């Protein structure tokens, strides 16, 4: 496996992505929120033009095919500046699912389509417990049920939907404007695009099935791993961004006649947070390498990354707000945006408890 530090190519990609994302800055998310938009379409068009939407799409389909570690690099930089976009749902999760199933992902790479993943039905991530019905009808299916927490749910042009057919869980690729489908925007704390979906007799053909009928979890597996690793990278970037903002503040803010960063109690907490971020960064780097080198055995690496990233991001934003004091509580200041996104990111695609349980189970097997 490649070393856990970035390759030269990855360093170049990171520098370019950082410059781009920092130019937009948290101001971009703030503007998106204040305008009530799902994300900045112009910014996304630029990302598409740079090949980001096709990062996991084959070159034969117009993708840049840079791989999972590269997708992590991009997500980390987006996390640092809290850039809102369909990158994770569409360019990572959907592109991986489609490609592994031998379907075209060209529309993702060229930006003509964006995807959302319609999976969660209750407040906690639990794919195996999916209840949405996919009733057979002729050569096709009729989908009935609801999805509770769908990222990019209002803006996506297409949906990956997991539903229960007679043969078992099955993954569908359907038009987001299908008849019988209603999408209600959820106003969540991170000001990004989320929706609750209701399916009332939505029709799907046999061609809409991704992978095999009854093989929905098999089809979804690689995509979930990719999404979990990449949201972890975003959370790492978010932690780094919040931490940089906080140490910057510690160096400039004065109280009681001295810079507050000179108070040893704050110094030790900052140094501890630095350590946690460094340790989490290793888990993220490892997950990217594993997905590129041996994707079907990356479960442990991915759950390790998601558990660490969720926890570290929580600590980074709690310390961030507290160390900023009163100003950190104001909407005018950016640190609160980090706290809100960290909360949603920690929950999405499995929280700390879920992934800790996965790590324990996978390690248990390994030891046996």
């Amino acid at each position, binding site marked *: 496996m490649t070393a856990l530090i970035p390759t030269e190519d990855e360093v170049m990609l990171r520098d370019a992505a950082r410059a781009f994302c920092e130019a937009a800055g948290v101001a971009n998310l703030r503007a998106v929120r204040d305008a009530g938009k799902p994300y900045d379409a112009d910014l996304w068009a630029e990302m598409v033009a740079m090949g980001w939407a096709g990062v996991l799409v084959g070159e034969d389909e117009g993708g840049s095919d840079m791989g999972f570690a590269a997708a992590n690099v991009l997500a980390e930089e987006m996390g640092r500046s809290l850039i809102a976009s369909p990158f994770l749902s569409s360019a990572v999760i959907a592109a991986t699912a489609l490609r592994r199933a031998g379907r075209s992902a060209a529309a993702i790479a060229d930006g003509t389509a964006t995807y959302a993943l319609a999976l969660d039905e*209750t407040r906690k991530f639990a794919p195996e417990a999916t209840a949405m019905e996919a009733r057979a009808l002729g050569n096709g299916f009729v989908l009935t049920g609801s999805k509770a927490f769908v990222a990019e749910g209002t803006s996506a042009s297409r949906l990956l939907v997991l539903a229960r057919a007679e043969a078992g869980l099955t993954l569908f690729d359907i038009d987001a404007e299908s008849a019988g489908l209603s999408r209600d925007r959820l106003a969540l*704390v991170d000001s990004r695009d989320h929706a609750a979906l209701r399916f009332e007799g939505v029709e799907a053909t046999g061609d809409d099935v991704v992978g095999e009928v009854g093989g929905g979890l098999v089809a979804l597996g690689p995509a979930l791993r990719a999404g979990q690793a990449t949201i972890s990278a975003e959370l790492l970037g978010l932690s780094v961004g919040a931490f940089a903002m906080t140490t910057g503040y510690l160096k400039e803010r004065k109280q009681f006649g001295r810079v507050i960063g000179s108070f040893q109690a704050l110094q030790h907490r900052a140094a501890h947070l630095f350590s946690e971020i460094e340790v989490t960064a290793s888990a993220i780097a490892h997950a990217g390498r594993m997905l590129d080198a041996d994707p079907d055995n990356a479960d442990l690496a991915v759950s390790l990354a998601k558990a660490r990233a969720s926890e570290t991001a929580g600590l980074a934003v709690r310390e961030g707000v507290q160390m900023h*004091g*009163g100003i*950190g509580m104001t909407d005018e200041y950016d640190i*609160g945006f980090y*706290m809100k996104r960290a909360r949603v990111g920690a929950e999405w695609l499995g929280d700390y*408890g879920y992934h800790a349980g996965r790590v324990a189970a996978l390690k248990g097997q390994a030891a046996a």
Partner: protein
Amino acid sequence: MADGGQESLAAFRDEIADWIDRNAPADVRGRDFDESDICWGGRNFVFKSEGQKLWMDRCSARGLTAPRWDTAYGGAGFTRAQEKVWLEELARLRVKKPLESFGLWMLGPALLAFGTEEQKRHYLPQITRGEIRWCQGYSEPGAGSDLASVQTFGADKGDHWLVNGQKIWTSYADKADWIFALVRTDREAAKHKGISFLLVDMTTPGISTRPIRLISGKSPFCETFFDDVVIPKDQIVGEVNRGWDVAKHLLTHEREMIGGGGSGAIGARSIGSVLADGDITDPHTVARAQKLEIDSLAFGLTMERYRDLAKQGGVGHASAMLKYYGTELNKDRYELLMTAGGSDALAWDGKYGALAPEWLRTKANSIEGGTSEVMLDILSKRVLELPGE
């Protein structure tokens, strides 16, 4: 009424209960109250109902909006024991309090301790009658925990000060009639020595306010700007340049109000209300919930024990522990609630109501009224007597 024994207190209880029962209108009785039911008084206050106004007026006529203040200042002259009975009977009969205000909580006690007789007779009855609503002008941008670093400056112009500067975290400044503010009146003196405690009519030309939006959404907090504001020399509490004494007195008061996170002022949802659905079984969340239950119970007992200690002669600076521990515990509680609530908890207004904004709001618990760091400094220096640098 004399400070009698158990017997006369029992008679007092009957009497006051009877009075409440005869005078409290239906609008202020017998249901769960929320924040919108609070009567704040003041020139611009919009009463929620006729009964709300009637109840305030009836109570203030009997001095019951400030039961322990002297009758000469609009109070009822109650003892502490009598006040307790009054509050107990209100709670028992499910009748809400007639008036809440910063005037009652903060300025009143400051005037009683530091004001002239003339000031007491002028300002206090306006407060008890709910005519004037006060707000507090302490914090400034850039001051933070270092409250004494007041930059708002009042230039001495003979019969008045000409004040320029800016205050922040002035709760309800946009709704208040008057403000009590710390203003630097001597730039040459040591930090704590050149501050005066001034009273200012908010309608004075040059004063403007702007509400502050928090990460949790709308808030009662404002920024308040002073632009060549003229303040007559008699609108001062205590001596010129000795305002810090007054402020310190009030800060102690405020800390006691905010402290005690597990219950009361800060409010706390029970974990069970969110965890109860039974679908959360991962050991991390369960362990956190059990620990939070344990720590909350023990903290509740600690508040009780400290009340007992206080009665016996005071707890001194150790009360900083209640502020520290209670607010940190409350933040933990809401972090856990958010985890337990999962994606249902992420909405500004969702299945669990305003849980998410409440969670965000708790982050201020350990900042306002003295940060956790300041509390730990107080404990280590004043209680543990660890040396300075």
